[in-house]
């Protein structure tokens, strides 16, 4: 009888929590919508919802547009809209990867970059850029070559890290991180060598690539990323329970029925794949994987059942806001989005470190 009452209480509190989180998701979605609306109208090119609405109406009625209206529509549909959708996908991917990474290594300061992804991507992209510069015949497919190289480079780096960190007894997280540091250092050396031998042009391009930008986003790129994001996000959702178990410790997780080694590898590769995808198409965008899971944890708790989708949503919102800021802060200049996320993320990270140092637990 006694336990019946408290069982009911427990159920009630669990349901109440679920309701609260669902309300949070709804709020987040609305917020995303608001930022989308604001972002649509921000930037060097003057645009407002009213003008756009007129243009859309005219299009619906199959009427021809004036030059000015055509430009309005062009800026919205070919420049801003694809960027913002891409921002949402990339933000969700990066944030969920960060969440998975932190859950796997049981450290709230972990970031997917730990396992060498960004280093590998940058090294490969730099190589591709230098090659294109040297062999103008490659210029035509340049973009694809760079993106493809970055993708392969990221995965290659992770592969090396996994090999180095593997021992017969399994893979200790600490050796993983150390191997990641080593691979990042190697990548840095490679980039240094390429930078030294490159001419002015290539050097600049390499620099810009590493800053991360949504400048050249087209609908085909968005569709590509979107199509891949759907299964990836589904997989992250599947990982919610395993990540909860990882939080208790690998031995505990194994004892409770999780195939730890299998899931460890799976999570690492999924993180590698998603971040490689985002990096290949948009360059290096840092701190999203680190900062978003933190904020999400303070708002939604540590249970990955809610935390993971929250990270996806918050990541999308953050990148939307960052994209809007990158276009709207100093028109007609466009600040590379990697710089915006770092400018916000780095101080936040320092604040987190300080908080941890003072003895408080982090999220």
């Amino acid at each position, binding site marked *: 009888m006694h336990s019946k009452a408290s069982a009911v209480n427990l159920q009630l509190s669990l349901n109440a929590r679920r309701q609260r989180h669902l309300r*949070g998701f709804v*709020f987040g979605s609305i*917020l995303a919508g*608001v*930022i989308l609306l*604001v972002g649509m*109208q*921000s*930037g*060097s*090119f*003057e645009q407002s919802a009213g003008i756009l609405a007129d243009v859309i109406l005219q299009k619906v009625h199959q009427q021809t547009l004036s*030059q*000015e209206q*055509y*430009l309005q529509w*062009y*800026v919205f549909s*070919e*420049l*801003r809209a694809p960027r913002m959708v891409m921002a949402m996908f990339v933000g969700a991917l990066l944030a969920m990867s960060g969440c998975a990474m932190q859950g796997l290594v049981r450290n709230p300061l972990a970031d997917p970059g730990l396992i060498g992804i960004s280093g590998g991507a940058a090294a490969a992209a730099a190589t591709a850029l230098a090659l294109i510069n040297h062999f103008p015949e490659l210029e035509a497919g*340049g*973009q694809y070559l760079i993106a493809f190289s970055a993708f392969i480079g990221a995965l290659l780096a992770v592969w090396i890290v996994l090999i180095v960190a593997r021992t017969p007894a399994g893979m200790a997280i600490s050796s993983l991180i150390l191997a990641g540091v080593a691979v990042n250092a190697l990548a840095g050396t490679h980039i240094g060598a390429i930078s030294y031998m490159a*001419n*002015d*042009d290539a050097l*600049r*391009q390499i620099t*810009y690539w590493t800053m991360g*930008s949504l*400048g*050249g986003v*087209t609908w085909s790129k968005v569709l590509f990323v979107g199509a891949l994001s759907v299964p990836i996000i589904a997989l992250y959702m599947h990982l919610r329970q395993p990540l909860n178990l990882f939080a208790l410790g690998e031995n505990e997780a194994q004892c409770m029925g999780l195939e730890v080694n299998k899931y460890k590898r799976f999570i690492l590769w999924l993180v590698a794949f998603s971040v490689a995808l985002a990096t290949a198409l948009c360059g290096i965008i840092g701190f999203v994987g680190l900062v978003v899971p933190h904020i999400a944890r303070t*708002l939604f708790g540590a249970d990955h059942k809610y935390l993971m989708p929250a990270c996806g949503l918050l990541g999308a919102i953050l990148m939307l*806001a960052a994209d*809007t*800021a990158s*276009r*709207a*802060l100093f*028109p*007609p*200049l*466009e600040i*590379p989005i990697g710089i915006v996320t770092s400018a916000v993320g780095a101080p936040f990270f320092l604040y987190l470190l300080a908080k941890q140092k003072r003895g408080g637990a982090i999220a």
Partner: protein
Amino acid sequence: MYKYLSFILFLTTTFIHAPVQADVSARAGDKGAAQSMRIIASGGSITEVIYALGKEQYLVATDSTSLYPAEAAALPKLGYFRQLSTEGILGFAPTHLFGAQATGPETLATQLESAGIKVHIFTEQRDLSGLQQMISEMGQLLDTPNKAQALNTQIEQQVAKLKYEARIRSQDSREKQGAITALFVMSDSDRGLTVAGGNTVPQSLFDDAGIINAAKDLPDYKVMDNESILAANPDIIFVASHRAKEPDALARLCQHPALKATNAGRNCVISTMESSSALGLSPRYPDALKRIIQKTAAFYAPELAHAQ
């Protein structure tokens, strides 16, 4: 919790919603002057040539490197030419974009063309004939082929005259010495000197002036190691002006470990060259050439040695 968050986010987003900074007249003038060009110029040389051809009234905005002439520096700036913003450009409602080869990012040209802007990217040139080609092309695009031709002829004649003078004087003094060696310094740091090697505009200037580039075996602009500089033993040093702004910059450079023991360093024979005309091809090429010839005159006629 949500209240605070939403309030902060709301503040940030309203702040960020900055209206356009684009040229107001752009909006107003759109309907009326539909026939005239509105040109975006990307690259200092491009801008200069437009001014030289007298078509500057069509320029609406340039990149950040377009600083010559002074009026160009006053035009709205779009950022560095390798990383321009499509949206930023479209905000000026242009009709044309004329850009140097490295104008970027890669998607810029396609995006602008899809928006109805005519884009013309000029191939990068490093010598006089390349300059003339660029001027002719520009003349065609701006519908002023005669002026372009005239400009080209003028430049050609000036350069030919200077080259002739240079050749004569070097022939005269051939018994005294071989050709002189010069070094063009782009920037200096404690790590080394970045110099202009082969296939650069300074190389072309040196060739026309009949002097040897100490760094001719280096590709483009590179750091030359101190030993190679000493081995080449330049007689005179030219420095890009944007790197030698302080009063004692030149004297300090003569003390640089790589230069101290060279002919140039020991006698501190060092001059500045205006960066935009010495590093990029422009109609001021003859002026740059003239300056180089002037500064090296002392070697050929010691009795006419100039002070710096």
